[in-house]
């Protein structure tokens, strides 16, 4: 008979960061009703306050670990680290949006509520310890993004972008559910540590249960791979990134990836790390597939990005490519003994990518016109003359995306390559190095345009106060991580994955 738990059993203390943000979003929705239409920045400040509260709670509980909600919710340092990334993303997302929404005349309070809800979804994802919670978090992070992508309506591109994202997202979401159902069919549970415990029996038994589990793993990869935009589930990315309002693009290019990889890492590392076809193998059964996906993503993302003339589209392909680098770390996690190192590498990469990409999008947003035009690569021509500070920071962001030393991007790449080598994925590491050389072509082109080409510089009317603040923060983060990487590495050093907490 079902034992009725008590409220104390829920361990609510551990869930405070995520819960407070979700609750804050609900309250904000109500408060916003009483904010006059022309003073919507009040809503934005309240949203930032909510993020700050959640951030403080997260730091306060950083070292506590355990499960909540009857084992479906895990709180550990992995969660804590990712929550830092997610909350900074949300905070910078609000800062970038403040003036942009005003300029584009689409200022509505719901925007900030949706942003908070999506961020809450990402945070739930980072602590999901059950396939069902993963799915709910996935939807909670996605649905607000669909709406935010269309926020520029009746602009056709924006509407199209949201619609596409929604339809394809629903399609991919269905695959995830199917995968989760198959895993449940094979193991009889949706709880990740319990799946882990059941895997050994399945390996021994083989046969149809093995078949179900393999299918389920593949479909889960599809559902989450869509969110993080890896080849061949990437087709939506350029259209959606181009059409969505730029601050939304910035937010989802980082946030959705952080959320998606959080789920992927947790499922693969906690539930399926020892899932091999035969006893005695060291590489997990799914590693081969992840490896190929990562390689295809790296190659396609980097090469097609060369041909782009719109900077948002170019950054979209570049974000696909960066998903490939993180995927490399996830693939590396499939080798026995490398899982923790690879997870750390992925987390560090995510953090570096967050600062850099938000900064780059911030600058793209700054040169964008009120009607959403002028986001071409050519619009950067002469920026060094009209806005030397912006151009200098853009240079750093581009160098960081390329992976030049002394920037955060290099640190991230270093750890990812290292973990891939440790996992014995030498060809993948070589592909990674080669494609990052290729990537220099399209990143350097922006620098060339800014510094070396003659032309009237863009006045960068979008570089208003709050946008500048956001860019400064991103800039500082990129450089700090590059020059003093131990700040981030020491933080990630503390990360102990649930896999060690529960089952070993």
């Amino acid at each position, binding site marked *: 008979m079902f034992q*009725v*738990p*008590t*409220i104390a059993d829920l361990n609510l203390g551990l869930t405070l960061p995520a819960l407070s943000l979700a609750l804050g979003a*609900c309250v904000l*929705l*109500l408060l916003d*009703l009483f904010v006059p239409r022309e003073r919507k920045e009040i809503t934005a400040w309240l949203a930032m306050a909510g993020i700050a509260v959640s951030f403080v709670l997260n730091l306060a509980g950083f070292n506590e670990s355990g499960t909540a909600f009857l084992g479906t919710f895990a709180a550990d340092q992995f969660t804590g680290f990712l929550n830092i990334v997610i909350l900074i993303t949300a905070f910078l997302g609000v800062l970038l949006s403040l003036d942009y929404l005003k300029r584009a005349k689409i200022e509505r309070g719901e925007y900030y509520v949706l942003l908070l809800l999506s961020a809450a979804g990402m945070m739930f994802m980072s602590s999901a310890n059950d396939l069902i919670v993963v799915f709910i978090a996935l939807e909670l992070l996605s649905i607000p993004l669909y709406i935010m992508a269309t926020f520029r309506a009746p602009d056709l591109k924006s509407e199209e972008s949201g619609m596409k994202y929604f339809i394809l997202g629903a399609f991919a979401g269905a695959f995830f559910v199917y995968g989760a159902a198959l895993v449940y069919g094979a193991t*009889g549970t949706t709880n990740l540590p319990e799946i882990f415990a059941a895997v050994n029996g399945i390996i021994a038994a083989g046969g149809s249960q093995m078949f179900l589990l393999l299918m389920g793993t593949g479909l889960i990869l599809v559902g989450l791979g869509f969110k993080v935009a890896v080849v061949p589930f990437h087709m939506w990315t350029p259209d959606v990134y181009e059409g969505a309002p730029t601050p939304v693009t910035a937010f989802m290019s980082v946030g959705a990836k952080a959320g998606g990889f959080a789920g992927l890492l947790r499922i693969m590392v906690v539930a399926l790390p020892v899932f091999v076809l035969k006893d005695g193998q060291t590489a997990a059964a799914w590693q081969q597939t992840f490896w190929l996906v990562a390689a295809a993503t790296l190659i396609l993302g980097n090469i097609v990005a060369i041909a782009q003339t719109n900077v948002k589209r170019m950054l979209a392909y570049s974000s696909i490519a960066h998903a490939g680098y993180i995927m490399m770390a996830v693939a590396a996690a499939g080798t026995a003994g490398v899982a923790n190192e690879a997870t750390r590498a992925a987390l560090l990469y995510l953090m570096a990518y967050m600062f850099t990409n938000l900064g780059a999008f911030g600058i793209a947003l700054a040169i964008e016109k009120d009607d959403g035009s002028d986001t071409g690569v050519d619009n950067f021509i002469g920026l060094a003359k009209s806005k030397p500070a912006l151009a200098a920071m853009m240079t750093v962001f581009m160098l960081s995306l390329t992976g030049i030393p002394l920037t955060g991007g290099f640190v991230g790449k270093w750890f990812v390559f290292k973990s891939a080598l440790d996992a014995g994925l030498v060809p993948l590491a070589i592909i990674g190095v080669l494609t990052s050389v290729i990537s220099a072509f399209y990143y350097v082109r922006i620098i060339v345009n800014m510094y070396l080409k003659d032309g009237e510089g863009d006045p960068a009317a979008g570089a208003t106060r709050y946008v500048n603040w956001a860019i400064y923060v991103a800039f500082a983060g990129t450089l700090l991580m590059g020059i003093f990487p131990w700040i981030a590495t020491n933080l990630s050093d503390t990360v102990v994955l649930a896999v060690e907490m529960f089952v070993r």
Partner: protein
Amino acid sequence: MALQEFAPAAALLGLSVLVALLVVMLSRLLGPHRPTSRKQAPYESGMKPIGQAVRRMPVKFYLVAVLFIIFDIEVIFFLPWAVVFRDLGVYGLIIMGVFLFILTVGFIYEWKKGALEWE
């Protein structure tokens, strides 16, 4: 794994499919069936069909329909809870309170936004 736990659900599923088929089949079998092309055409008061079957409707209808579904679901959720209310005790009460809170937030929002006013 004990598949027989799902036996009642499977029976219900089978039964509903059976009934649905039966109703369609029966009317088909029992009723007279002499189709002409005019009979097959969509019915528009005897006139030849013009325009599409799907027309634009005021968005209010959708709004009301969505609101209806939300409260419908609420009732569906409430009913089993009410049945085992005593067993669940304070825990169940609080959880349902959370559920209600979220629902109420949405309700206040739509009220204040004027979604409940027809004009």
